[in-house]
């Protein structure tokens, strides 16, 4: 077993060697511009792009023509939301999203608020799920778009996407879904899920960084977008810029592998995740799983070890790469807004660790990680005045703290 162990697969995933192999020719001899229509270099590049488009489309139940390539999912989400807001401005200016969305969605919506849009940020229930009744109520005559993610990047909670899509369809509102964490991990189908626009990332599914895609529905309804980047009119005019041919070949290959291997892989990952969960929870008291365990990605475990601060825990398990919702690990010095939205209290956000298990993790690595986390949590609880107080029978919620 090699150290350090990588268990942060929601942040990014390693490139699958088979993906790298598929990309290599387009860095080397086949370097052509896919927009060059008059020579073989261009034709070969274009063929690679169209193969990639088909591979992505077939993973998500789409038509290849409905795939627009971008630089990554943040761009896809920006294009989807801003593109709809601009294109459908005459129809309405109201957008609905949720408090636990990725920053790419939240910050795009906040930007549009400044430009005159009205945005509803739906709260989520304690298990992280959007309340469908609330969503129904939030839709007005002015609503043009609902943007709800498929699966959350921190807690792995899977939203009732098909129901959300159905509600949107009934009400004639477009539905954008950030499916970055879900595509390739769980079955995603834009037809049965009634999705109109969907963001996809390469590097979350063992593909390369710097490439993503946006699914844009072509019929029933035909979705139109105002381009956000002006230029040569590539990608049906929706996204100008020379195509990243090796990246697209890689993203396509990653989707093909996911399509073939997802069923077996998700079973294996869920077994590893449950193994980790069971080991941790049987050895340690006062550990809490954040978000629904039932509606969850097979590879995600987000768990709070009460009375232990997340960054200090990361420091103790420094040969295991994971992340924490603790304020100390964030650039803003705020604890995770996703965990805060669950209403569990900031203290549990500070104590949270996100494990993201991936294709290349082994049972041995999981066992090593569990043992390490258990010993460090025990050590830090010996150091924790809160754990001591609780063991003395003190109710921490009744203590007069000197917040700072």
């Amino acid at each position, binding site marked *: 077993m090699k150290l350090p162990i990588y268990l942060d697969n929601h942040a990014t995933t390693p490139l699958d060697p088979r993906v790298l192999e598929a990309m290599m020719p387009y860095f080397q001899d086949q370097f052509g511009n896919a927009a060059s229509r008059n020579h073989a270099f261009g034709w070969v590049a274009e063929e690679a792009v169209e193969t990639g488009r088909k591979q992505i489309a077939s993973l998500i139940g789409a038509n290849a023509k409905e795939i627009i390539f971008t630089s990554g999912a943040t761009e896809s989400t920006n294009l989807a939301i801003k593109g709809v807001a601009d294109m459908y401005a005459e129809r309405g200016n109201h957008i609905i999203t949720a408090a636990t969305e990725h920053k790419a969605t939240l910050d795009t919506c906040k930007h549009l608020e400044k430009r005159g849009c009205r945005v509803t940020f739906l709260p989520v229930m304690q298990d992280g799920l959007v309340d469908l009744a609330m969503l129904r109520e939030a839709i007005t005559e002015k609503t043009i778009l609902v943007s709800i993610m498929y699966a959350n990047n921190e807690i792995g909670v899977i939203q009732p996407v098909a129901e959300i899509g159905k509600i949107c369809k009934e009400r004639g509102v477009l539905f954008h879904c950030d499916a970055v964490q879900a595509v390739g991990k769980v079955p995603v189908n834009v037809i049965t899920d009634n999705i109109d626009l969907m963001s996809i990332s390469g590097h979350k599914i063992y593909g390369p960084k710097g490439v993503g895609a946006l699914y844009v529905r072509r019929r029933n309804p035909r979705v139109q977008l105002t381009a956000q980047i002006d230029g040569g009119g590539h990608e049906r005019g929706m996204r100008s810029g020379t195509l990243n041919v090796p990246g697209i070949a890689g993203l396509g290959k990653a989707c093909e592998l996911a399509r073939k291997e997802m069923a077996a892989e998700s079973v294996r990952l869920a077994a590893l995740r449950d193994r980790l969960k069971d080991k941790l929870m049987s050895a340690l008291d006062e550990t809490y799983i954040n978000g629904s365990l039932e509606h969850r990605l097979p590879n995600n475990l987000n768990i709070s070890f009460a009375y232990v601060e997340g*960054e200090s825990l990361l420091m103790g398990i420094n040969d295991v790469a994971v992340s924490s919702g603790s304020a100390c690990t964030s650039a803003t010095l705020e604890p995770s807004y996703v965990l805060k939205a669950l209403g569990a209290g*900031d203290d549990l956000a500070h104590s949270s660790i996100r494990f993201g298990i991936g294709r290349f993790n082994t049972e041995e690595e999981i066992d090593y990680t569990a043992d390490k986390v258990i010993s460090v949590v025990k050590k830090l609880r010996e150091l924790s005045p809160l754990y001591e107080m609780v063991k003395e029978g003190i109710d*921490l919620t009744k203590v007069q703290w*000197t917040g700072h």
Partner: protein
Amino acid sequence: MAYSDKVLDHYNNPRNVGSLDKSDQNVGTGIVGAPECGDVMKLQIKVNDATGIIDEAKFKTFGCGSAIASSSLATEWLKGKTVDEAMAIKNTDIVNELSLPPVKIHCSVLAEDAIKAAINDYKAKGATRKPAAGVEA
């Protein structure tokens, strides 16, 4: 984020972890911070009435590595000091000793607050403390 060697040393080998009897008249207890802020420090001193010197110092900290290191360092510095000398410890001394980056300065501030809170608690007990050997701290 890279930690300084001294922070790592205190984190890996924290000094003076534990608790003193908070009902002891010679023990001063300071608890600062709040769980929802992500750090709580408990720092305790035991003062020798005869000499006015801090004989023992203990801490427990819920917080990041730098918070643990700051409080561990504080207990080391407290031992052997008089209460007045202890009162003079500044958070900047801790920042310098541990090479804390700007984002971790609040950890040192919390440690200074904990020292002061412990001393104030000890002093507040003075009214009820039995006079010993004629020395009043």
